[in-house]
């Protein structure tokens, strides 16, 4: 019997109200356009270095991993990437800005892929979209223009499972591609981010194009609140960062979502009963139960070894019936172990 098979969890996606409309702008937060140059390049004449230059000038940052796009392009042309993978996975609930682009801005996305493909001389390109059983009613096209859409099914987290050898792939987020398209066709600098604004406090949940550097509080009030939020999150619902002061946190190029929930997690005073669900779901085949026990007994050394390989997907905390804060602590220990490993 395999103990480390890929497991993960099936999550309710909650993407529906966001995906039924396209990307919109908030009236109270108008988009200010800015341009880095007057002369527009001819998309057909681009080569790799010119494209990198444009990406650099337009200050585009890839939202899927927070890396500057020109660096990724440079690396791909240096390594001779075999294929372009357009990241429109959106495997976390609520977050759907990439998917929304793939569904509603498919012409621009297609042109953007063509531009990158021609400029870098890469043969193949594929768009990856995640879907699972809970949102069957979302219609995902089998092709975007000429490019194949690869549907990734199964459980959360999907990203790990589909990316086996990253070194020969050029993975670009869908939002970054749109920004690149705008930069190439209109010399526009990235001044916005595509953000999913959702949660049960939001009056109009949708994917918005939001100017960079506005605060989370501005975004929330502009999109309308129906209840005072108890928890605000920037980023994904599974891996995002909890916001303590919404007036000081600003929208960044890599911000994927702003979520506001009315419900507060109470400490129910439960202790671990060893149900083993965290072990059942861990995609890395770890035993969060074991690590938790070790950590509580202050055996950090052994815990470090037992936690190696944690990627902080949050699945264990999600399923835990005792509502323990597992993933955070385990990731901390695992990161600690990695640092220790590098030093020796």
């Amino acid at each position: 019997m395999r103990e480390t098979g890929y497991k993960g969890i099936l999550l309710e996606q909650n993407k529906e109200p966001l995906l039924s409309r396209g990307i919109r702008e908030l009236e109270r937060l108008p988009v200010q356009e800015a341009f880095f140059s007057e002369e527009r390049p001819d998309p057909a004449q681009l080569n790799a270095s010119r494209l990198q230059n444009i990406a650099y000038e337009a200050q585009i940052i890839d939202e899927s991993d927070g890396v500057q796009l020109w660096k990724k392009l440079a690396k791909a042309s240096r390594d001779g990437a075999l294929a372009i993978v357009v990241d429109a996975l959106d495997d976390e609930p609520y977050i759907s800005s990439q998917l929304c682009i793939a569904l509603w801005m498919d012409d621009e996305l297609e042109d953007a892929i063509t531009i990158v493909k021609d400029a870098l001389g890469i043969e193949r390109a594929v768009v990856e979209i995640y879907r699972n059983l809970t949102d069957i009613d979302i219609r995902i096209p089998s092709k975007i223009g000429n490019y194949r859409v690869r549907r990734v099914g199964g459980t959360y987290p999907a990203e790990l499972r589909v990316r086996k050898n990253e070194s020969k792939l050029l993975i670009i987020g869908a939002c970054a591609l749109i920004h690149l398209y705008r930069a190439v066709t209109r010399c526009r600098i990235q001044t916005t981010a595509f953000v999913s604004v959702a949660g049960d406090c939001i009056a109009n949940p949708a994917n918005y194009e939001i100017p960079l550097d506005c605060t989370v509080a501005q975004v929330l009030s502009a999109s309308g609140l129906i209840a005072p939020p108890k928890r605000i999150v920037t980023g994904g619902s599974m891996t995002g960062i909890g916001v303590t002061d919404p007036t000081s946190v600003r929208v960044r190029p890599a911000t994927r979502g702003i979520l506001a929930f009315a419900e507060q997690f109470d400490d129910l005073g439960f202790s671990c009963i060893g149900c083993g669900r965290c072990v059942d779901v861990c995609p890395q085949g770890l035993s969060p139960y074991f690590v938790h026990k070790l950590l509580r007994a202050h055996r950090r050394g052994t815990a470090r070894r037992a936690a190696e390989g944690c990627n902080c997907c949050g699945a264990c905390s999600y399923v835990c019936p005792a509502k323990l804060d597992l993933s955070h602590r385990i990731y901390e220990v695992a990161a600690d172990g990695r640092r220790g490993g590098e030093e020796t």
Partner: protein
Amino acid sequence: MNDLSAVFSALAAGIILQNVVLARAFFSEDPNRFSRTYRGTLRLGLITAAVAVLATVFAVALRQLFAQALLWAPARWAAYFCCVAVSFLLLRPLFARLLNGRHGVSDKGLLYAAFNGAVYGIVLLSMANYTSPLLAIVYALGCSIGLTAAQLLIHAGSERISLSAVPRPFAGLPILLIYIGILSLAIYGLVGHQLPT
């Protein structure tokens, strides 16, 4: 066939009954102090077994030789004890080479583990329960195997206990006693024999 089954039943009785039921397995307040790894515990168990079996062999020989002697009855306990001591001294160099310093087993730990009441008890019981020399030795072997198994279980238990939030008055020895108590209750119920006292 009958002899064979007698041998096996002696072995089984030795393994199960005399050890965990009587919790012969823990002979000091802290089994953990002898060895802190499973491999070390296993090795110590094997050493104990070797000493016990060898001592039983000596004891059987002594009994065969002197059973008719006048002073045998009062002196037999001391004689059996000498058997244990002699076999321990004989086997000691071997053990010292086998695990000296490794697995966290100290010289004193070796002494306490391989030469103790448990081994002496095995010899005494196999002498008391079986008149046939072969059966007595097989019984001692069974006892030693059971002892090793029990030591492993208790090591596992104490490790598991050390990872859980035991209330402070119970931490350490008391909770281990309760653990052993419930374990011996379970094995007693499983086997369900009348206890020899």
